């Protein structure tokens, strides 16, 4: 080994030895600094582990997600061409099953309860992979051969139904063969919205529900002789399937789709965890800043004895690397424990059984990220070491360089910004979203920091000199040297902003639906009414003393050509600028002579009545028109149940979709499609739940094909959904809030070291414990108050933006909730501050001075 190399090794060894020696009397404090990142790392490791397990589980269980090698689906009865495709794939298959599914009302005959469900009429041995999990287990197979049904477990609970009871689907009674626990690819959330009821396909005609005009989805499931050919087969048939308006799924396509959806969820959750980590890092940076200030003399001595600035810097960098590693490892351990809970938290959202194996790659990522980010944030105060002059051993240096002029400080700020941006970009995959996220987080930090600075300025500027000593002392603690005002306001404020946003968004989503519950709005919608039933249904509603608020015909049409360009033309020539997806697509239109009050013409001219012989001037919803890339005056051709109807784009409409009423992308003037096959929607308003139940029972009894949605059901489903989503967001937001309080606790304890001498001095001069605690409580009360107030303001700003631009609802936050939050968080801050300061008052002054010196 060369002498140089030996020297480098010895010098490196010395730095590690000094880092170790110097840490001996500070380890508990160093660990306290780093505790701020533990929660953030725990959140990320838990999320990464969950993601790893989920990816593996989706991989392992992909076949049971689909239940077949190939699935073909269409929302209309198969035409000859489509039937030939089904037959040809059937010939290549070992097994073939068929399903027709649609929304319909069912009646629980035991108690007369009615509910809109997803009826799935099944023929064949589907699923070929996995099973229909039922109780009793055999029911999943036996129901297919009898007039029996499988009913979703939550429905059974809701209507207190038992196996062996009856359920009426359309005109037919079915015996409940079993409770459906799990169907392939079905998540808890999906069943909340439309709980499934399986019946044998053979009995579907007898229900009378599959009539012409019914909105039925057709599925064909295949178990191929050579499953490996599934993708090649569907790829080859892709364009043919498109022509016949059929979609398909294979195991690998579903795997991709499911993986993509949950990768998005995982990325979102990672960002939430990352915010908690960032918050913790600010805590680390602040704590290290104070630590280095306290080390100023030791560093000056080392410099005096001949240590270079690099050596002094490296000693403390090694220390921070060490504690960063310990903190990250502790976070990873905690995250691995938390990860065991995540399958429970997310059970309702995920269509596969989630395992909770330890993910070493997640632990590695977490520790790596933790060490890197804690060092990155600690670097800001650490680079200051380079400027500590040895002259400080003799006297405080007068020529301390300003950190603002230090280009290394700016380089680190740049590195931090780049890192945050880079991490967000990896999660969001879009520059705009990344800029919005980074800007949003940055803005929140800046606003909170500005609030803290404003507080300090106001207290200094308008210092209440006439107030009592305790108040003055508590207030002056906010701006004294080494104060923790900024970091505490940022940490507590960000946590508060999280909780407040959560409350506000939940309120907003509920109010978006509740809006429709106002006095004169409909709260019950009857749909799938056949033309022949229209008058009778309206009569029944009126007989029950209920108003018919609206009655709308619905005609299914197909857009065949835009300005003479058909779907075939667009397929052949990719340079044609029309929406290929829209051409040939089905949509539900209506005809009427007047606009409703939820519509407004934004371009062109509304024509309510078609003149005989003239081409119809249709009105398009403006977003739909934009997707079609059409302008006023363009020519369209529609196929209405086999009849070609030319039309001209007459006007564009802005539509308020936030109403319980029928809204349409396409409206024909009266006098064009009035005689086309159609079904009807009727809206009424029921005064209460009892009237609603009575109406539903009467309707289902006489018109089993008519489906009913009542607002009460929507609200209860939404409530349940929001509860589940709120729980997940609350669970994740909890990490940030918890980090906020860890940072708060750590900051209070660190500032305790700063204050200890003064408190002891006060005690020596005769201050009572109560007085010292009162000073502390007042200081933390002001801190907590400004932090929680600013946090709530931030949340209000964010929620307002969401209300105005995303949900498009009026923004009316509940002041009482917000006030409670402000007071609650401020009180919690005081509590934590006081609890952590008790040590100072509970021991004799001399003991503390000896210990802390």
């Amino acid at each position, binding site marked *: 080994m060369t002498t140089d190399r030996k*020297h480098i090794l*010895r*010098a490196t060894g*010395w730095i590690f*030895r*000094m880092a170790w*020696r*110097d*840490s*001996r*009397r*500070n380890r508990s404090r160093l660990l306290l600094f780093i505790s701020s990142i533990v929660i953030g790392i725990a959140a990320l490791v838990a999320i990464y582990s969950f993601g790893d397990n989920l990816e593996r589980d989706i991989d392992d269980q992909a076949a049971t997600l689909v239940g077949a090698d190939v699935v073909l689906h269409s929302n209309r009865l198969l035409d000859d061409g489509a039937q030939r495709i089904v037959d040809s794939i059937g010939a290549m298959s070992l097994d073939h099953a068929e399903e027709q599914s649609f929304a319909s009302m069912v009646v629980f005959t035991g108690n007369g309860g009615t509910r809109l469900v997803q009826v799935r009429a099944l023929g064949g041995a589907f699923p070929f992979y996995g099973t229909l999990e039922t109780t009793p287990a055999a029911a999943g197979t036996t129901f297919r051969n009898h007039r029996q049904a499988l009913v979703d477990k939550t429905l059974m609970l809701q209507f207190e139904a038992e196996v062996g009871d009856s359920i009426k689907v359309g005109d037919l009674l079915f015996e409940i063969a079993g409770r459906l626990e799990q169907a392939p690819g079905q998540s808890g959330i999906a069943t909340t919205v439309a709980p499934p009821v399986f019946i044998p396909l053979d009995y579907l005609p007898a229900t009378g529900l599959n009539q012409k005009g019914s909105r039925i989805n057709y599925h064909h499931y295949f178990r191929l002789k050579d499953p490996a050919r599934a993708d090649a087969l569907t790829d080859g048939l892709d364009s043919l399937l498109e022509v016949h308006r059929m979609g398909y799924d294979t195991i690998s396509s579903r795997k991709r789709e499911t993986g993509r959806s949950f990768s998005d969820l995982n990325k979102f959750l990672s960002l939430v965890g990352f915010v908690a980590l960032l918050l913790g890092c600010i805590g680390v940076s602040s704590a290290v800043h104070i630590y280095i200030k306290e080390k100023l*003399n*030791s560093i000056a*001595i*080392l*410099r*005096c*004895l*001949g*240590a*270079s*600035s*690099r*050596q002094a810097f490296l000693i403390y960098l090694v220390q921070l690397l060490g504690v960063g590693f310990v903190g990250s490892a502790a976070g990873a351990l905690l995250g691995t424990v938390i990860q065991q809970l995540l399958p429970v938290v997310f059970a309702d959202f995920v269509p596969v059984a989630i395992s909770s194996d330890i993910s070493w790659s997640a632990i590695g990522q977490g520790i790596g990220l933790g060490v890197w980010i804690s060092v990155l944030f600690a670097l800001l105060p650490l680079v200051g070491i380079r400027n500590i*002059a*040895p*002259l400080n*051993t*003799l*006297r405080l240096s*007068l*020529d301390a360089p300003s950190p603002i002029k230090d280009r290394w400080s700016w380089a680190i700020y740049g590195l931090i910004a780049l890192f945050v941006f880079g991490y967000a970009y990896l999660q969001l995959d879009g520059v705009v979203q990344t800029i919005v996220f980074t800007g949003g987080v940055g803005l929140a930090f800046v606003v909170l920091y500005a609030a803290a600075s404003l507080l300090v300025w106001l207290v200094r500027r308008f210092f209440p000199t006439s107030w009592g000593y305790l108040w003055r002392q508590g207030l002056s603690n906010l701006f004294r040297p080494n104060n923790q005002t900024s970091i505490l306001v940022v940490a507590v404020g960000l946590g508060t902003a999280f909780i407040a946003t959560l409350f506000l968004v939940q309120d907003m989503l509920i109010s978006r639906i509740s809006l429709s519950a106002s006095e004169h709005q409909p709260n019950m919608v009857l749909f799938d009414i056949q033309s022949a039933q229209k008058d009778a249904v309206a009569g029944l509603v009126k007989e029950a003393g209920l108003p018919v608020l609206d009655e709308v015909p619905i005609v299914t049409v197909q857009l065949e050509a835009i300005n003479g360009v058909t779907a075939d033309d667009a397929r052949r020539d990719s340079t044609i600028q029309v929406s290929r997806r829209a051409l040939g697509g089905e949509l539900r239109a209506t005809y009427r002579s007047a606009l409703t009050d939820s519509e407004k013409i934004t371009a062109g001219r509304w024509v309510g009545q078609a003149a005989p012989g003239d081409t119809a001037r249709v009105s398009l919803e403006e977003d739909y028109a934009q997707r079609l890339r059409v302008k006023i005056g363009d020519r369209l051709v529609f196929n209405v149940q086999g009849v070609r109807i030319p039309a001209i784009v007459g006007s564009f409409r802005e539509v308020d979709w936030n109403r319980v009423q029928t809204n349409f992308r396409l409206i024909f003037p009266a006098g064009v499609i009035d005689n086309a096959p159609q079904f009807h929607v009727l809206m009424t308003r029921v005064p209460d739940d009892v009237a609603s139940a009575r109406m539903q029972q009467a309707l289902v009894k006489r018109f089993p094909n008519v489906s009913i949605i009542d607002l009460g059901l929507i609200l209860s489903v939404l409530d349940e959904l929001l509860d589940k989503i709120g729980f997940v967001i609350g669970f994740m937001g909890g990490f940030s809030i918890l980090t906020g309080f860890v940072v708060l606790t750590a900051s209070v304890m660190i500032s305790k070291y700063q204050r200890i001498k003064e408190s002891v001095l006060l005690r020596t001069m005769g201050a009572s414990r109560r007085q010292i605690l009162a000073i502390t409580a007042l200081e933390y009360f002001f801190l907590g108050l400004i932090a929680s107030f600013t946090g709530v303001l931030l949340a209000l700003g964010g929620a307002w933006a969401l209300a105005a631009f995303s949900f498009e609802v009026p923004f009316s936050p509940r002041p009482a909730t917000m006030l409670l939050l402000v007071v609650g968080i401020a009180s919690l801050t005081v509590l934590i501050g006081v609890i952590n300061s008790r040590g100072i008052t509970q021991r004799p002054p001399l003991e503390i001075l000896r210990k802390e*010196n």
Partner: protein
Amino acid sequence: MAVILSVKEVGKTYQSAGTPLSVLHAISFDVEAASTVSIVGPSGSGKTTLLGLCAGLDRASTGTIVLSGVSLDDLSEDQRARVRNQHVGFVFQNFQLLPTLTALENVMVPLELRGERNSRAIATTLLDKVGLADRGHHYPLQLSGGEQQRVSIARAFSNSPQILFADEPTGNLDADTSETIEKLLFDLNRDAGTTLVLVTHDLELASKTQRVIRMKGGTVVSDSRMQHGAR
């Protein structure tokens, strides 16, 4: 005799609240190797600033300082640190021991910085010389003021410096302890053949050195050789 420290026309100006504050004006003197020199003067006369400049702890605003044949003027802070580690020892009024290191480790630091392989053995010998062989594992907080200063002296001699700078070495000690420390300092200095430059208020201590430089208002007002100064 060879000159170990040469100070020529040295001045020092600080920026204080935006205005220049001149604390040293055109100071010049030479110090011979193996001699003992004290710098005395009232508070604010600039003696500690001068000591800091001579030891390379700070950079002079004007003039030249040559220490052990090395001009300090154009050296970076890290280069001056190397000079200090190779040639200079320090004893401070408030001892300036690293509180997180034991007595032995404190003495070892300059040796370890030089890459000395037998640092532990050398440091143990030095602690023995200052009478603290059995206190090596104690932290500064566990030692009395006199003991801390003895550790500080052991540390100052650990790198066999050519020149030792002492800033009020007995300023924080009682009379009896001061006497012990003074004796230790001069004895070790004599045995090692080191040059000693000390700053003090204590004229009795100053009179024990071969030469006394008096300062006032940032200038040297007298430079006298003592008849009975210690060597």
